[in-house]
């Protein structure tokens, strides 16, 4: 689902590379935790995988067709994200002007899923994340934990092959964090997707199938 080979990245005005020569892969149905010190480049790596930032060298094969996102143009990267990647952020990043249901529908619209299926899928997923009946509500009226569940539902709704999560629970109290994480893992496994989860929490890392540690010297 995700295969990375000799990946290097240096920021535009930076002297030192954030990382270089990274190689690893994540299989379908596998949930991998990515840990490391602050500033070591975890978010940068996730951004490169999602094609939000360009990588300098190496290749990143994503999805069932194993397309190399490093070699794709901007529009093709966007299309690949729409079809194969789900993203969850530390900050909830929900569109405030769309209702909960509309927020979740966005990936379906972008992936071109037939409109007739939307309502049922969204309802089912909302129920699975414990937000049954929240569809017509506006984001401003939800709590942080609820918003993060909306974000998780949105990351899963179009059944992406790969899920990327950047500290998905960093903003929440430990109990809610555990609940949300359990939910995320459960859904990922249910959909037989691959997942790469950046986290600072030992507990979260333990729940994953495998733990990768990013250090300035490389992966361990």
């Amino acid at each position, binding site marked *: 689902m995700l295969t990375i080979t000799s990946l290097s990245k240096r920021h535009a005005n930076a002297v030192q590379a954030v990382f270089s020569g990274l190689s690893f892969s994540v299989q379908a149905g596998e949930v991998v935790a990515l840990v490391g010190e602050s500033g070591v480049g975890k978010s940068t790596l996730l951004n490169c995988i999602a094609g939000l930032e360009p990588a300098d060298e190496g290749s990143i094969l994503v999805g069932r067709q194993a397309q190399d996102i490093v070699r794709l143009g901007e529009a093709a990267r966007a299309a690949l994200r729409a*079809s194969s990647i789900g993203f969850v952020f530390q*900050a909830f990043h929900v569109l405030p002007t769309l209702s909960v249901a509309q927020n979740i529908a*966005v990936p379906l619209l972008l992936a071109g899923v037939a409109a007739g299926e939307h309502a049922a899928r969204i309802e089912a997923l909302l129920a699975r994340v414990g937000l049954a009946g929240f569809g017509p509500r506006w984001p401003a009226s939800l709590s942080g934990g609820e918003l993060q569940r909306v974000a998780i539902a949105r990351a899963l709704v179009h059944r992406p092959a790969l899920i990327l999560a950047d500290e998905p629970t960093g903003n929440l109290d430990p109990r809610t964090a555990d609940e949300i994480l359990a939910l995320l893992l459960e859904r990922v496994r249910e959909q037989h997707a691959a997942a790469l989860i950046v986290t600072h929490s030992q507990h979260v890392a333990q729940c994953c199938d495998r733990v990768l540690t990013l250090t300035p010297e490389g992966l361990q």
Partner: protein
Amino acid sequence: MIRLAWWLVRAQFTTRRMATALSMLAIALGVALGYAIHLINAAALADFSQAMKSVQGEPDAVIAPRDSAGQVPLALINEIARDADVAIIAPVIETRVRIDNATMAVKLIGLDVFSAAAVTPKLLPRQSDRVAGGSVFEDGVYASPTLLARFKLAPGDAVTLVRGDTHWRTRIAGDLPAARPDDLLLVADIAWVQARFGPAGGVSEGRVRLASGVRVGNWLGAWAGRLPAGLALRAAEDDSARVSNVSRAYRVNLNVLALVALLTGAFLVFATQLTAVAQRSTQFALLGVLGLSPRLRLWQVLLEGLAIGVPGAGLGLVLGYVMSLAFTQVIGGDLGGGYFSGSAPAILPRPAPALGFFALGCAASLTGALYPAWLNRIQPLAQALKTGFAQSPPSGGAAPRRRRWLKGAAMALVALAAIGLTRLPALFDLPLAGYAAIALVLVLGIGAAPPVTQIVFGALARLRLPAPLRIAVQNIVQAPLMAQVAASGLIVSFALTVSMVTMVSSFRTAVDQWLDVVLPAPMYVRSKGVPLPRELLGALAQPAAPFEKVERSAAVSLSLDPQRPAVALLVRELDRAEAAARLPFTGAVLAAPADRLVVWISEPMQQLYRLAPGQSLRLPLLGREVEAFIGGTWRDYARQFGAVVIGAADYVALGGRFEPTDLALWPRPGEEAAARTWLAKFTADYGLEMAESGEIRKLSLSIFDKSFAVTYALEAAAMLIGLFGLAVTLAAGVWLRARELATLSALGFDRAMLTRAVMFEGAMIAGIGLVIGLACGVAVGAILTHVVNPQAFHWRMKLEIPWLQVLPGAALSLLAGIFASRFAARQATRLPVAQVLANAQ
């Protein structure tokens, strides 16, 4: 995908109702103005050419004297009638008469009933049953229905037609069933008219229908060489061309105003969409992460622009239609320009122009959305998610200093180009180069905004200001885009306002001074085209008349160019020696050689026919070509198509009949009241019009003010748009800094401090905008006064900058700008600090 786009558009509209509605309105206003002008003008032109057709019929060619005092000899009419290529020629006599002693003169047309049936069927009379016996045209006159109604006459009534000293007692024999509702005319047999009012041995016009298969151009060519000097043969098509040429410059000017309104609309869309893009940068970045492609991010913003433009343009069409109806009812079809008279023309919207104006409105709002859309497309996703809106594309390429140098050079080039354009002559009789120069001045003003903001705020940043102010200043130095946009809006709107005020004030001052010179006498009498009665002229010559001095004048029209409206020949009692004192000359007055005829031409005449004092001018006068020496050019703000003054004595010496129609009267000192009563008897008996110079002056200036009233409305609209742009962009700037401001609050700055900081920022931006706007406005005003006006209307004037209006206007705008920034500040301080800090990571 369409659904997503629609959701976003709807969300955008509901969260920013005010900005969206105002942008929509501005677009609507531009479209409405342009469309209304188009509708009114099309209607007026159609109306005018129909009116002309109803009176003139639809001949192929017309033969007429080039001098309105001249005639076409009957012998020539007969000769043309014998030409095998001519199907029929209809001789016509046109003259003006009064009915009894009414003040208004009406047209009397003498026709030959047989040829008229073929050429001018709309003028065919219908005999009333009430009028006994005889055949059509046997006796009496036929009146158009409108004339009957206006004068409360009915067939069978006796009327006296008066022209000068000639009276024709006759009766209304019937009506003109095919006359148009506006036609105020009388028709009678040509022989009867000729017997009463002349001209003996000739007619006013011959209207020619050619045999089928004969080409008008060929036929005209064949005859051109054979005509006597004072006559001209023209294709009837020339008349329509002339009609449309008459009001062309005026129309184009109005259209430029409409275009300006549309451009301000585009600016508002720009400000709205730019701030919308900035405020939603995280949202768009998120959508990008979810897979919305960059191209779709671009299209989304364009679509939002279009979503403003489509309803705006649609509303504009409706508004334009309503406006055109209202205008034609209230002011008439000439938009106050005085070119067409008559009743309100019928407005007839057609699909093609409506679609054109609709497209123009959409294009304007798309243009406004273009740059914001592009900025949205190039936002770096990861960064936008983390820190929000990036104001400029990631820089690269040329070093900053070199870029600054290049920008300076480009601006110098633009300035040079603008100066060069003001030197160019009119293109197609229109001041197109002048308009282009104005556009360049505005570009220059907008281009000056970024460096000036940078310099001013850079200098402020080095001052020791109180902390909140320093933070505001620092913010603009770091992120100047919003400030630049706000300043540009003010620059353009204030420049337009200042230039308009300057142009109108220069014009008004010039007209005011000109009226002083052209109205030297205390009293005036005129008879509107009908010669003054000899009884009055005789009485004036008596020593008993309470006047110290009387100057008589008459006017004739001369056709110098069939494509242009006729030129007025003003016959005045003027000595060549005293001309310099009596006419408002623009330059030196040349002494003519004693043996030569001298005339003085008006400024529009000089421009239109490219003449100069000292040259000789050939005038088609009294049936021949007369060569005259041009003694000088005088200022004339009344006759846009040219006028020539000739001394009455010279005119008479050439063989002309001096039949005065206007009098300038100087009552004996102390006898003003007596003079008024002395005149009253004549004015009542002969339907003359008497006015004192003060009244004429007041009336002229009030007409002037009325015709420019619409510009004040436009100025107000422009300033409102500029100020609104300032408020929108400042508010957006504040919104973008919500986090920063919230942090400051959390650190202990109170609301009043933050409000002051934002207001200070607004005042500085408004100040910069107003100063640059003032400079551009003066430049544009000078171009309007010195380039556009002379090229469009052929008159010149001195530049008068009305500082007494401009400076208070600037102060008021500054206050309004500070007020607008207060609105923005209020938004900022109302942000819930805790929520902002919690939400934004």
